């Protein structure tokens, strides 16, 4: 008997057992197939992810999960491990969902790809969910617990995506929804049209109101509605985000927030030296250093200018003190006392969040609601930096600084030296623009506070391309012999 025949017999037996054992269920039958890895570390991570996918699905209770060990054994015995064969196997085994994936090592970490296929209506073997991500760790460097946390987070992200994108058709019979789910609400009703053997389409036939599986209107038998699991997806995201905060942040203490408040002025004043050296450089955060150099150094220049050309010095030289010079002096004080705080927060919270992302122990100061509110009130993007959102942090930083300068400029009273009396005559403020800037500043503050409180911490272990990267690209394409210019934006 050849190998093929042996495998075929086993496959048939398993198909029979699986089909028989699940014929009593009505929930979608999901099988978590092979998540493949080639090296030992890839395999280790793949096994952990698969295990957590199964656990999350089981706890969700919306699928009937096939015994993962048995399924794995049978898949390994299949005569071919191509997608086509596995889909064929899943179809014969009467599964509604089959999940397959790979874990690949790259120079800086792993690339994880997991796909889910739907076998029944409305998918008929099509892939309905594809999740691909990278995680920049070496899993063998991690302790068992941390490795498991990382795998669980990846699994939760995949499961959330799967739940978001999966729909189950429920058939209508005698104006009642059949199936294992009790549903209420408004749904689109579809009629099933077969165009050719097995090639069916769902044609929308209006919306229906359902209350506890009973339909108020009269709907022909055989129509279907599609239910989704978006709520479950949101629950998974919320649960794992909250859980990660509990794991990686030390329990927030009121003293921490008080210390941070007390430390605001010294931190801001020492920012030009402490932040680049002990913040970015010490932690090798060179992108942070570059952003700081581009965004903050010009303001430090203004600060220095304001102090060097302070009114007292100008008075010694008997010069007029313009509105701009007065405003720069006030702005210098603002930068010294408060304006440097956002950079300080950015340098240190970035490092803490980096540790938290990879479960490297519990980090202090982070995760405190009081600190979050205080920094949001302080403004200039501090709260956003605290939560690891640099883009928005710098947006608020510049907006606030511009408004503060506008406010100070219009508040400033220029001093004109009267040569005859040898005295300085004080000018007046620009009241109207001053109020406009004050109003604008208040508005930005309110928006910033609400925005800061509403965004989550940048805690995901996987890399998501969130930064805006506009990259002009001048090149001769060696493959298609095209000379051109391209401009790409990734976000």
């Amino acid at each position, binding site marked *: 008997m*050849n190998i093929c*025949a042996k495998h075929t017999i086993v496959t048939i037996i398993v198909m029979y057992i699986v089909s028989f054992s699940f014929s009593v269920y009505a929930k979608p039958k999901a099988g978590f197939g092979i998540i493949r890895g080639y090296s030992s570390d890839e395999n280790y991570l793949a096994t952990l992810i698969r295990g957590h996918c199964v656990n999350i699905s089981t706890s969700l209770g919306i699928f009937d999960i096939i015994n993962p060990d048995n399924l794995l054994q049978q898949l390994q015995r299949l005569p*071919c491990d191509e997608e086509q064969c596995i889909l064929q196997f899943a179809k014969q085994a009467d599964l509604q969902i089959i999940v397959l994936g790979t874990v690949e090592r790259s*120079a800086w970490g792993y690339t994880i790809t997991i796909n889910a296929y739907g076998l029944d209506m409305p998918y008929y073997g099509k892939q309905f969910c594809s999740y691909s991500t990278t995680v920049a760790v070496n899993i063998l460097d991690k302790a068992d617990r941390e490795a498991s946390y990382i795998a669980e987070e990846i699994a939760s992200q995949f499961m959330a995506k799967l739940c978001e994108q999966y729909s189950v058709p429920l058939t209508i019979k005698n104006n009642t929804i059949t199936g294992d789910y009790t549903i209420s609400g408004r749904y689109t009703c579809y009629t099933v049209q077969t165009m050719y053997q097995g090639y069916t389409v769902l044609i929308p036939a209006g919306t229906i109101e359902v209350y506890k599986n009973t339909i108020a209107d009269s709907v022909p038998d055989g129509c279907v509605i599609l239910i989704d699991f978006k709520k479950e997806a949101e629950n998974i995201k919320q649960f794992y985000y909250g859980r990660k905060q509990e794991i990686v942040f030390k329990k927030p203490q009121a003293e921490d927030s008080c210390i941070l408040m007390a430390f605001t002025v010294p931190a801001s004043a020492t920012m030009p030296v402490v932040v680049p050296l002990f913040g970015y450089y010490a932690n090798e955060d060179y992108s942070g250093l570059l952003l700081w150099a581009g965004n903050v150094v010009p303001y430090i220049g203004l600060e220095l200018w304001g102090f060097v050309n302070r009114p007292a010095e100008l008075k010694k030289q008997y010069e007029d003190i313009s509105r701009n010079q007065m405003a720069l002096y006030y702005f210098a004080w603002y930068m010294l006392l408060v304006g440097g705080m956002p950079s300080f927060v950015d340098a240190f919270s970035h490092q803490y969040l980096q540790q938290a992302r990879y479960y490297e122990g519990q980090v202090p100061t982070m995760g405190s609601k009081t600190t979050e509110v205080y920094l949001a009130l302080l403004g200039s993007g501090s709260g956003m930096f605290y939560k690891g959102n640099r883009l928005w942090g710098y947006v608020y930083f510049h907006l606030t600084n511009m408004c503060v300068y506008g406010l100070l400029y219009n508040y400033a009273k220029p001093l004109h030296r009267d040569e005859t009396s040898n005295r300085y005559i004080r000018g007046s403020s620009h009241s109207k623009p001053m109020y406009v800037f004050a109003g604008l500043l208040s508005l930005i503050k309110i928006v910033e506070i609400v925005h800061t409180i509403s965004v989550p911490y940048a805690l995901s272990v996987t890399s998501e391309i969130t930064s805006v990267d506009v990259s002009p690209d001048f090149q001769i394409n060696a493959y298609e012999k095209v000379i051109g210019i391209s401009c790409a934006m990734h976000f």
Partner: protein
Amino acid sequence: MVCMLPVCVMLWIQAVYADDMPVDVIIINTSIQTPMIKALSSITEKAVKDAFVECRQLVPSEAESFFNITGIQSPDDIIGKAHLYGVSLLVYMRVFLVGPVYYCELSFKPMDSTITFKEETVTVQATIAQNIPLKVKREIIKRHQDILQCRIKTKVDTRTYIIDTGQWHGLTEKTYTLANGKQCAVKVVRRYTALVQLDGDYIVGDMLAIKSTVSRKNLLEAITAKIHENVSYERSGKELLKGDSDSKRAMEACCVVNPFGNILLPGYGAFLATHYMGFTHTEPEWWGVYAGAGAVILQIGLVPVLGKGEVNLFPWIKDNDKTDAQHHLHVYLWATLPVTYTVAFFNQLAYAYEKQRYLPPFFADKDITALLISAIVPGGGLFYKGNRLWGYTYWLSEFSLGGLIAYNWQYKSRRILWAGLVSGIKLVELFHAWVATPVYAGYSYELSHNTTPINVGVGGFGTELCFYAYFSKNY
């Protein structure tokens, strides 16, 4: 009856396979499975498969799976079975190691005249094992076309057909324009097939050409980026420093160690400073040492020479023998001494990286780093990418023009002229630093394409009495 069951089941599986589970390409791994090669050959085999999957035109299958499904006992039977199952292409791959270099030989054997692959053998090579699968993938992707060929499997009615292309190939439920300008409305998509409505009468077996949904350019760029990532990681200077941070060391060497070294030993100090980066070599790039030392002597001695030895040696002392132009030039020459030291250091580093086959820090972001370095140090970005000649050219031109600006400071029109010129050169330099390809031999070798750019040979169409000769050039 019991004995007949496996046979029936096998026949059923085969029938199902031939009908519902398409196989267009069979990948046959002929590598000798030594312990050194085994893992790499299986990863490369997967990469070959992935290349076809990513291009979404030909459905691949590994030979072992195909053997199991079709019940082939001997690999010699594969061609016959492949014809039977409508396979379009056989890909033979062999991974081997010669000295420190890994090779992979790919042989394409087309079985169907409609596919774009021609009968040829391609060899790729790399010293970093992880790059072999990527380079193999690149060669396969390059050989795909931007046209997706769909075959009509079934005629349902005068306008409705089933084609052998589905979601796997990137098809969605919408209307496509065929290469012949006619419309193809995709009504129902399955994983490997679709139900379509066409203008015109077609028969089973006719081919429809649709524009491919996959951007090969993006796939190829992604592969190049991964190879670059691998080289940057494997050849980073971290190994030289035994776990210490090469980026921090580079900054400290540049900003602290090198300036002091050059003050003590102009030119040669730059070479000594490279040791702080972990290099243990004993031979400097002597022309760089001479150039660095010469530049320092020139910067210190030019104004005293111009003043016939009567002017004060130090720029901050302006005596009556020094003209205003000489004073400005003197300040400029002394102020730019740190730049000269840095250029000398960059030159020695570029030489050391090339000789020792390492790559500078931050090489993963090589273009932006080169741009930033060039913004600070004249020619710095070109030195960073290993192009020392261009580095010196930019430094010399900008340094000389800077000197002319300083010397002609009191003449506004000349000052503006020279400043405009130096700004123009700076802009060109920044652009050049950004787009320049690194010239480190190890790096170029890893990114290089297949070793057989020109293919010459003869072949035959399977069992048919027809032979052909070919000459082709790969780009």
